[in-house]
């Protein structure tokens, strides 16, 4: 591995995980289109950035590990961290076995305490405000090298919470160990980036706050991996924020709301596979086998999950208060 490239093994691992994430998303879309699930939203097209991010996380629970305030296009990051297809399908089918929400929340709204992943919300900005508090705790912890990653889309930066994040994370002498990422797919539902943004790069919004910032090609896994690795190491050492914008594709539109149909944009996996073939790291048959293997796995897991139990209506009263303290006024 040179400074500007990744080892063969790492590149193949990234490719493999990218395919796994894409196949999972495409199966989720398929489930939605079959009328078997209510709603799909996810991150196909963002794998080249999101998989390296997941691989670079110091994974675990508690203050000695990284924290992730993610948005709903983060499946590839969690796949890279070890999330199973089964968990993704359980959420899509809103099964009782869905550990993230017990059937309460949409697909790709994960909650994984063992990896410091608080519940993903559907609103596009709250995570930028909430990440500050956790980064504040990490900053105060002695000899701590953990960081907080907060992700969002370009439309999320329209909201005040993005400005909140920039202001609070850069207070003089109180800077926070925070990796602020913007996966800029150039769309906010049906509204184009170009119609709403006058700044050339969203990352430039870090400048007035003296926040280290950069924009990268998020469709290139090597560039993404190397940039993330460098910036995360810098944050761990200096305990200050970085604003990183990754330009990515949005391959299936916003969500079910926009039909979830394939769009003709650059596909980061196809681009990578072209490179892998030209460098003779993979043959066409190898690639087909990888896709085929994951597609078979997805079908099998879908069938298994469909047999799992649905949540009982009475569970709506669970977990309103901690330790299942009663929150139903009828029982006061």
């Amino acid at each position, binding site marked *: 591995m040179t400074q500007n490239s990744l080892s063969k093994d790492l590149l193949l691992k990234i490719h493999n995980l990218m395919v796994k994430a894409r196949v999972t998303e495409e199966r989720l879309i398929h489930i939605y289109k079959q009328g078997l699930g209510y709603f799909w939203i996810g991150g196909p097209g963002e794998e080249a950035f999101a998989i390296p991010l997941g691989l670079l996380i110091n994974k675990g629970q508690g203050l000695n590990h990284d924290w992730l305030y993610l948005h709903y296009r983060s499946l590839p990051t969690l796949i890279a961290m070890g999330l199973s297809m089964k968990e993704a399908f359980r959420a899509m089918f809103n099964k009782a076995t869905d550990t993230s929400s017990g059937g309460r929340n949409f697909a790709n709204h994960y*909650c994984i305490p063992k990896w410091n992943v608080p519940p993903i*919300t559907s609103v596009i900005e709250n995570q930028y405000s909430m990440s500050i508090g956790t980064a504040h705790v990490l900053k105060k912890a002695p000899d701590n090298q953990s960081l907080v990653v907060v992700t969002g889309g370009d439309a999320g930066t329209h909201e005040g919470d993005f400005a*909140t994040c920039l202001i*609070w994370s850069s207070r003089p002498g109180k800077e926070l160990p925070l990796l602020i990422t913007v996966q800029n797919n150039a769309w906010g539902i049906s509204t184009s980036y170009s119609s709403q943004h006058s700044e050339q790069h969203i990352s430039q919004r870090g400048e007035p706050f003296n926040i280290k910032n950069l924009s990268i090609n998020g469709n290139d896994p090597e560039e993404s991996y190397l940039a993330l690795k460098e910036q995360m190491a810098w944050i761990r050492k200096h305990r200050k924020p970085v604003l990183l914008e990754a330009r990515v594709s949005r391959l299936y539109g916003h969500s079910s709301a926009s039909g979830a149909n394939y769009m003709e944009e650059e596909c980061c996996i196809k681009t990578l596979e072209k490179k892998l073939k030209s460098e003779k790291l993979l043959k066409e048959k190898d690639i087909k086998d990888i896709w085929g293997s994951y597609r078979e796995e997805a079908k099998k897991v879908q069938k298994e999950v469909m047999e799992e139990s649905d949540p009982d209506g009475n569970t709506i009263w669970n977990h*309103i*208060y901690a330790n299942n303290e009663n929150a139903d*006024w009828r029982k006061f």
Partner: protein
Amino acid sequence: MANMTQALRMALHYGEEHLELRDIFGEDVGPPLGGVFTATQGLKTAWNSPLDERGIVGTAIGIAMTGQRCVAEIQFVDYIFNTIDLLKTAGNTLWAGNGQFPLPLVLMTPNGAGIHGAIYHSHSFDTWGVRLPGWKVVSPSNAKDAYGLMLSAILDPNPVLYLKPKALLRVKTPELIPGEPEDQKQLKEMIDAPVGEERKNWKPQWPKLEKYTVPIGKGSIVQEGEELTVVSFGRSLHLCKQALSSLSLSVELIDLRSLYPYDWTLIKSSVQKTKRLLIVNEDTEVANFGEHLALRAVQEGFYHLLAPPRVLSGKQVPGVGLHNNLESATVPQVKDIQSEIKNLIETKW
């Protein structure tokens, strides 16, 4: 004999020393001011935030997400409205996440009218608060309860909205907080920061405070009676007391203290005895929280009631006007409460 501000300050200090309270923050909460009502003077973990309410609530959630305890402040409850979806998120985080991330945070904020604070310093958030499932909502009416409720709020593993009745923040309570010196002047010298240059080097001398908690969800009977039950809290409770002091009627007065969860057992047993119910608060009248209690009283006790329950609350207008005539016409006054009490006792179905 502490006032409510001093009681809150002592409770927060107790929290810092004994309850693992690590962060007390908000606008002007840290030195030099220590809060616009001085409730956070001299506290070692108090710090100033940007003037950004969404940042304050978001940060509180992020701290609590790690399991650490914090008390955040919204300087006046009138400023809380732009945080409403973050409040919703705080309330649903445990539920949405299948019980996996409790949020042990306290959000305190001065609430209500009574100081001529005009349109943006007089709001009540009582009803908004109880419409945020997942939160607990409390509001004390005296200094000792303020201390006890704050300790309970800090200890609670859930988000607690602590509504400080701003008109009562300087009101003293005869009952002492455990550990508080009896001499009010002595207490002031110990924990009130001096004004001017002296403040720079000032450090509080904290009394040896003791643990005292008021359970969240438990109200108290302030005055026993037979003819009518009046349920109130915060500033309105004092107005009810004044109203009753010049009436020769046997009225039971309940201080709700917790708006959610609320003490239905106490209310119900009182209404079963008096057979009449009046609820008094300052929030606007349409879809007021008191209507829920009144409806429940009817549904569960219709055949015991001698008169329809009444709710006396703020008028359905966009704000509380500055002039005394405007404020008095907007939120319940002593004479309004007296009038309601008399009418209710004289009324039958």
